[in-house]
């Protein structure tokens, strides 16, 4: 069973809320759900839509091939009706016009119930849940969980919707086990909390902003602090200051904000103060297309900051990975006193994914601080693995951090021997990190076959879903992009007969990295750069 529902209307009509709630209802009923969100950069008006793919087998993407269009305005019908399946229908209010329209007299219902227009969305949700034969009690349980004190009035409208005579019913078999259902941005927030986040610093920027909002809402529940400084430069420098003082810190931004953080990333490299950055990519250089997706910042993340210093770049491919990899990011940044960039994008961050289970993280995040340092403690002690044991000011011995080249005590030096000695100390961390991430699955291979698709990040969903229809194909997902697991990547590519690179960008950035790291040139490239994610059918068509 696979159903695809598009919900569209104007910004401000609660499209994303409606779609997400419907997604939660189906996930609770044991279905796999993928929820895609599409919106332009405006607050009221325009055209927003979400697409829900609902299935009894795992689903991580959607096709433009709709069973139902839920229209909150005429524009939704005009724009999307060409993608409605032959036997599909459109659901909406009485004022709309379409031959496929099943109209509900929302105005009359709402005025009878004395509810504002936004509650019309709940009537539509109720109608769809009823249409697919979901038990009302199950739906109301989700409403209570989601709305708490405000649940009563929502429940009332859902109950009313269940009383409306259906034009038809298409009962779906209820799967037993309910699914986890959450977005990439929620996953990164929760991963940070699970890893012991103390302070999140951010300046609003789409598509990283939902993390700022989510964590801000959760401050009391988890005793964390969320701070919004005057600009991204203040964000990252304050985060380094707080980390130096012993707080576990993360910052979040998109490309433009990350540009402003470049100098401080370099300061991180020199000062070795732990820091986690969430970089949510959005389309295009400069302002670009702010609310759409891309994988255009790979090289930027790999190279940000002047000078040579270790950094870790990890790119989760779905929301569960985002959760688990964020925990790893904190663990690695604290252990190796290094910069870790969690490289996501709008598609990963703002889409909802469903899972049967959340596995236990492979690592337990901790602060790696020495709580009883000796009086002769040295902030930058030269060690075999390059990692100087860390403590914080306030405990006793003098603790230093410096962006200037320094000796073991952190005192400035320009002496030739010490400059090379400290450079080597820092760079030795790269090999230490490489060894550590080798046991954290830096790559993953899915499926069987002699041919190979190579990709990274949020394209995972569409590729995994396309594998079902591609005979003889494996998928290599590269998760840790720095330090690059070149040996494993090389082995996988060399084993394959035909190799395809799939990326949501215009120049095949991962392909360039693979060539740099392994010498292998991947000639077959499937690239998409219109701000939209891949649909599995596009990948299948280009490969065949």
């Amino acid at each position, binding site marked *: 069973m696979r159903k695809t529902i598009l919900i569209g209307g104007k910004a401000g009509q609660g499209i994303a809320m409606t779609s997400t709630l419907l997604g939660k209802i189906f996930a609770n009923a044991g279905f796999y759900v993928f929820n895609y969100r599409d919106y332009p950069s405006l607050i009221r008006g325009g055209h927003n839509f979400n697409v829900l793919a609902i299935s009894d087998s795992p689903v991580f993407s959607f096709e433009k091939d709709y069973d139902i269009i839920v229209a909150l305005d005429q524009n939704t019908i005009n724009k999307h009706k060409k993608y409605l399946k032959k036997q599909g229908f459109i659901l909406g209010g009485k004022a709309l016009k379409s031959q496929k329209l099943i109209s509900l007299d929302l105005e009359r219902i709402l005025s009878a119930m004395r509810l504002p227009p936004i509650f019309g969305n709940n009537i539509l949700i109720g109608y769809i849940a009823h249409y697919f034969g979901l038990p009302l009690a199950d739906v109301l349980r989700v409403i209570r969980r989601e709305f708490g004190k405000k649940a009563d009035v929502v429940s009332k409208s859902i109950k009313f919707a269940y009383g409306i005579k259906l034009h038809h019913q298409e009962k779906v078999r209820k799967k037993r086990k309910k699914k986890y259902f959450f977005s990439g941005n929620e996953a990164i927030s929760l991963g940070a909390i*699970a890893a012991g986040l103390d302070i999140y610093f951010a300046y609003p920027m789409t598509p990283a902003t939902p993390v700022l909002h989510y964590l801000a809402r959760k401050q009391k529940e988890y005793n964390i602090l969320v701070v919004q400084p005057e600009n991204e430069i203040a964000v990252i420098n304050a985060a380094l200051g707080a980390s130096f003082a012993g707080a576990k*810190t993360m910052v979040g931004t998109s490309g433009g904000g990350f540009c402003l953080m470049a100098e401080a990333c370099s300061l991180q490299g020199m000062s070795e103060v732990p820091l986690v950055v969430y970089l949510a990519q959005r389309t295009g250089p400069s302002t670009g297309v702010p609310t759409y997706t891309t994988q255009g910042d790979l090289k930027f993340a790999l190279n940000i900051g002047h000078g040579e210093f270790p950094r870790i770049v990890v790119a989760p491919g779905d929301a569960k990975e985002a959760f688990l990899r964020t925990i790893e990011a904190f663990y690695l940044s604290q252990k190796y006193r290094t910069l870790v960039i969690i490289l996501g994008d709008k598609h990963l961050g703002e889409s909802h994914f469903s899972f049967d289970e959340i596995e236990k993280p492979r690592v337990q995040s901790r602060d790696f*601080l020495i709580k009883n340092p000796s009086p002769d403690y040295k902030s930058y002690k030269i060690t075999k693995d390059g990692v100087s044991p860390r403590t914080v000011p306030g405990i006793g011995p003098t603790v230093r951090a410096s962006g200037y080249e320094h000796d073991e005590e952190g005192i400035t030096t320009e002496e030739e021997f010490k400059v090379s000695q400290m450079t080597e100390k820092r760079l030795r961390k790269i090999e230490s990190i490489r060894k550590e991430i080798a046991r954290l699955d830096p790559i993953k291979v899915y499926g069987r076959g002699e041919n190979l698709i190579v990709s990274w990040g949020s394209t995972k969903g569409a590729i995994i879903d396309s594998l079902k229809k591609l005979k003889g194909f494996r998928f290599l997902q590269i998760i840790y992009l720095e330090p690059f697991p070149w040996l494993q990547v090389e082995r996988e590519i060399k084993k394959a007969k035909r190799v395809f690179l799939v990326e949501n960008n215009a120049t095949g950035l991962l392909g360039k990295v693979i060539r740099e790291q392994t010498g292998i040139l991947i000639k077959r490239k499937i690239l998409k750069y219109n701000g939209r994610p891949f649909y599995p059918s596009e990948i299948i068509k280009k490969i065949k």
Partner: protein
Amino acid sequence: MKNLNLQTKAQNTWCPGCFNFVILWAFQEAIRELIKERKLQKKNLVVVTGIGCHGKIYDYLDLNGFYTLHGRVIPTAVGIKLGNPELTVVGFGGDGDTFAEGIAHFLHACNTNPDITMLVHDNQVFALTTGQMTPTTEKEYKGPSSPEGKKTNPINPITLALAAGASFVARSSATHKQHLKRILKEAIVHKGFSFVDILQPCITFHNTAPYLSKRIYDLKKERYNPRNFDLAFQKALEWNYSLDQKSRIPIGIFYKKRRETFEEGFFQLKKPWYQVQRKVNYRKLFHH
């Protein structure tokens, strides 16, 4: 007391006779006295420095320190305070550092009132990069980047700080070391954002010593009341940082007021974060 030694092994590389030596002395004395008075613990003191001649003070103080980027002393210092509210955080910046590269942070700190101290070595010139003009340099100044003379008037950091809402605004001078020591002590003890603009002749590129010494007078000797905002603004306008011949230069505390600090606004900031223990059941996080 053994731990009152604040010296390090670092060799001092300021120009011989540089007024930075006076600032270093005054700060060390202020710290020693505050420790003796039990108003401060050495282990809880952190200095943050920017880039420029002033920044070298990081190497000359045996204190916890963060030698940060040019212009970013204030956000780094604010971060340290948020990371551990028990620390006493003192930032050192230059005039280029604070009023050119970092002006946004300066104005916002005046407004948000984090409990940190910001000491600006205001020598009205970029010295370490060999004598270019800064925002506080006088009009017509001829330097390597302005051979025909600076075209614009200097900014007045005192009026800026007052207008932006700073809760402690003071000016002192490296030419008046006892005054400087006294002001530094008061600034560090003040709860909230304390800003001290330290006038400092640069003996190599911008020697204002003769000009300053003739015109400086101490506000305290005039029985000036630093609690009156309007009066503070008037006093701040008495000298506009141009090296004009007619002005007198007031030094001392222009304005001082206890108001809620940035950190006091956050219920979470009760103890250092590294002491906070949490047990998170990761499955429960998802409200499944």
